[in-house]
């Protein structure tokens, strides 16, 4: 990266104040950064670090009540704050454009995607219809969408998440902007799609010589795109430097923690006794959902297709797959929140697939679940103590004893005893997930099913929760079914991994084997999609194993 390159975006001492009553006084605190033409600067931070406010400030799109208090934003030498409204509008979309996190909400569901890109061109004064249409088709083809003529007429809901994000990128590229601001453009996507979108952005950036301000929370994404990195913590700039330096020699303790959180840690290979009994098993389980396609067209979607799986005592089984692979349905069938269409589900050797809820209730204490969304999985109208005691009271344990157990559980998951008297709203995401874990453990289950239980959390909190789970599993001799889309997480925790796609289990095997010698092509593509393949790391640093 040559230093001689022209500075495109120059932010000096930017301070953005938040309205009174927010959790802190400033969204950004004296931030200084430069983006030079043609380079990619990654702004990294956890949720609430103020990174999205930066994007809004550059485009002068800050929400009501939030304002730039001091500092200066120069774009191509012009102070953004002094420009007229019309000038700023011209700048947005032409010189700077933006790609958002959630492509579905960035697109208008009532207009065909071709029309939407067409409107961007029209708004910026391309009046010739033929010329606009040609440009839109060219853009759609450029971002790698097959059959651009067909996509032109398609509506957002007819495209997949990855395709939608490509459309949003095509729209952003309409005028070959100098600077592309990408705010978490891959966070809502599956791993393989994520890799494709990152590759696409990288390609575009190099071909067009465009600068990119890439906002993300994910260090594995940083590794894939960044030339330079800036780390934010609660609005303060923690560290800035070349991607190479930050990733390999992070200076600030906060950066070090973040980098470590994104570095895959392998599970300690454990040998289960050969006669470890089978606790949970699915045999030839199939399940389908009816889906409606309007005008009475109905189709059956096969969410599970002859799935065979078993969990042995003391083992952690990972179920890995992208969204729509049926992994969550499998989890729901295993915990019997869902009755499968056909096949057997066995708990401790006993067939439960067809058992009515009435008979199942007494057996439920042995198999428990940790849910995905820590904000939706706790009843907001109950105190934490009451939440923890629910299961115990339902199983006929006297109130005094249940209370004592609830306090024990709080201690076990590292929460203060005072949490007992408070409502879930008083806690952060990570703490809430601890409450969810405590609730599941209160019944002293032998099997725990965790469905994406860390995917809604920030990277550092994820690590804490995973460490807690590992620790609890060792101490309580739990057997775990761990459902996740994240191979890093699976690699860290699981003894065996089952890879799922379109309702089928493609391969099952010990974690190391699956990572080192994947037998199925799809597993290989999943592993390749990882910005940093854990397989290589497993071999490169054997000390990580111990």
């Amino acid at each position, binding site marked *: 990266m040559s230093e001689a390159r022209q500075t495109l975006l120059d932010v000096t001492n930017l301070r953005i104040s938040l309205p009174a009553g927010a*959790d802190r006084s400033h969204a950004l605190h004296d931030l200084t950064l430069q983006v030079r033409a043609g380079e990619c600067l990654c702004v990294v931070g956890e949720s609430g670090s103020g990174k999205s406010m930066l994007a809004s400030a550059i485009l002068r799109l800050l929400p009501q009540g939030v304002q730039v208090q001091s500092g200066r934003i120069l774009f191509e030498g012009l102070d953004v704050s002094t420009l007229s409204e019309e000038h700023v509008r011209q700048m947005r979309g032409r010189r700077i454009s933006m790609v958002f996190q959630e492509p579905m909400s960035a697109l208008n569901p009532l207009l065909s995607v071709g029309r939407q890109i067409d409107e961007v061109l029209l708004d910026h004064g391309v009046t010739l219809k033929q010329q606009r249409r040609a440009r839109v088709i060219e853009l759609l083809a450029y971002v790698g969408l097959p059959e651009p003529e067909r996509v032109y007429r398609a509506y957002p809901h007819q495209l997949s998440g990855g395709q939608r994000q490509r459309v949003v990128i095509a729209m952003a590229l309409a005028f070959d902007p100098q600077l592309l601001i990408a705010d978490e453009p891959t966070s809502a996507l599956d791993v393989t799609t994520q890799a494709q979108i990152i590759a696409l952005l990288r390609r575009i950036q190099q071909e067009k010589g465009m600068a990119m301000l890439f906002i993300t929370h994910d260090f594995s994404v940083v590794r894939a795109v960044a030339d330079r990195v800036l780390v934010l913590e609660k609005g303060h700039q923690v560290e800035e430097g070349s991607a190479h330096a930050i990733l390999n020699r992070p200076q600030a303790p906060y950066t070090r923690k973040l980098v470590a959180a994104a570095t895959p840690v392998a599970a300690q290979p454990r040998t289960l006794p050969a006669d470890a009994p089978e606790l949970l098993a699915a045999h030839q389980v199939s399940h389908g959902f009816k889906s409606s396609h309007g005008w009475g067209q109905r189709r059956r979607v096969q969410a599970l297709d002859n799935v065979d799986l078993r969990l042995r005592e003391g083992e952690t089984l990972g179920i890995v797959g992208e969204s729509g692979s049926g992994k969550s349905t499998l989890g729901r069938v295993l*915990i019997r*929140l869902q009755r499968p269409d056909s096949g057997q589900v066995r708990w401790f050797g006993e067939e439960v697939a067809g058992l009515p*809820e009435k008979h199942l*209730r*007494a057996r*439920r*204490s042995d*198999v*428990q*679940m940790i*849910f*995905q*969304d820590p*904000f*939706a*999985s*706790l*009843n*907001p*109208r*109950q*105190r934490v*103590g*009451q939440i923890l005691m*629910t*299961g115990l009271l*339902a*199983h006929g344990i006297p*109130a005094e004893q249940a*209370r004592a157990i609830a306090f024990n559980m709080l201690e076990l998951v590292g929460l203060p005893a005072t949490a007992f*008297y408070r409502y879930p*709203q*008083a*806690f*952060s*995401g*990570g*703490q*809430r997930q601890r409450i*969810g874990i405590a*609730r599941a453990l209160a*019944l002293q289950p032998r099997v725990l099913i965790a469905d994406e239980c860390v995917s809604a959390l920030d990277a550092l*909190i994820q690590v804490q929760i995973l460490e807690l789970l590992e620790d609890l599993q060792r101490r309580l001799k739990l057997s775990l079914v761990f459902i996740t889309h994240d191979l890093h997480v699976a690699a860290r925790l699981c003894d065996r991994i089952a890879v799922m796609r379109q309702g089928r289990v493609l391969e099952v095997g010990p974690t190391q084997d699956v990572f080192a010698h994947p037998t199925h092509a799809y597993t290989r593509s999943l592993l390749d999609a990882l910005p940093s393949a854990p397989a290589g790391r497993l071999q490169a640093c054997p000390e990580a194993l111990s």
Partner: protein
Amino acid sequence: MKGDAYWLDGPVLRRFLKQRSALAGLSFLVLLTVLAAAAPWLGVASPWEMNARPLMQPLVESAHWLGTDMLGRDVASGLIYGARISLAVGVLSTLATLLVGFGIGGLAGYSGGWVDDALMRIAEFFQIIPQLVLAVLLVAVLEPSLASVVIGIAMVAWPPVARLVRAEFMTLRQREYVQAAVVLGQKPSAIIFRQILPNALAPLLVTMSFIMGTAILTEAALAFLGLGDPEAMSWGYMIDASRNLLRQAWWMSVLPGLAIMLCVLAVNRLGEGLRVAFELPDRGGIDP
């Protein structure tokens, strides 16, 4: 467990007390209830007693400060005794409506499938008939009395409640915390009363205030049409009695009209205040 009920908790009460209009509504209703309930002991004369000069203007004689009607009956005591019937009908028919709406809506929402379909078709059947016409018909068939008025109002008012309860149940049933309760082995009845219901309370309270307001209005309309309880003085009856004397004695219709309006307004403000008080704060939390 100490402080088990969410609504007795600090923040809810504090949020309610912060709203002036809700407090005003509550005080008005409390005052009216006390006056109406204690009327015989407060020395308020019977509203049927014809003991004064007919068509006396308000604020002329202190003994009949709101004037008298064409038969020399005191308007003030009419209003106070009328409040008895209005409030009783309001409260009782709201309870009856809730009972029916809740049972049917809850059953439909929790069980789903054909039960849901059947119950919702019945609800639609009631909704396609104009409400007042049906109420008039029911009361006329059942002979006018307090009970028949309450039944009449409940029969026409339950479908919206049932629909709301059903919708709330259907969405709440999918929530992760309800699923968690299933996994924990909680019984369906406990799940409904401890997990789902407290979370469906806020929208229900608002509907309740609407029902109560509508019930008071419907009662007045029925009494106006001569279908009120013949034993009891009511605001609707007072307006009915005065309709031929609108020009000569405005106070006879305006005063009970005002009473109806203020009463419904107070109920609505109270309902809105409760809704705001029960609303959950945002997702935000404190960091570890």
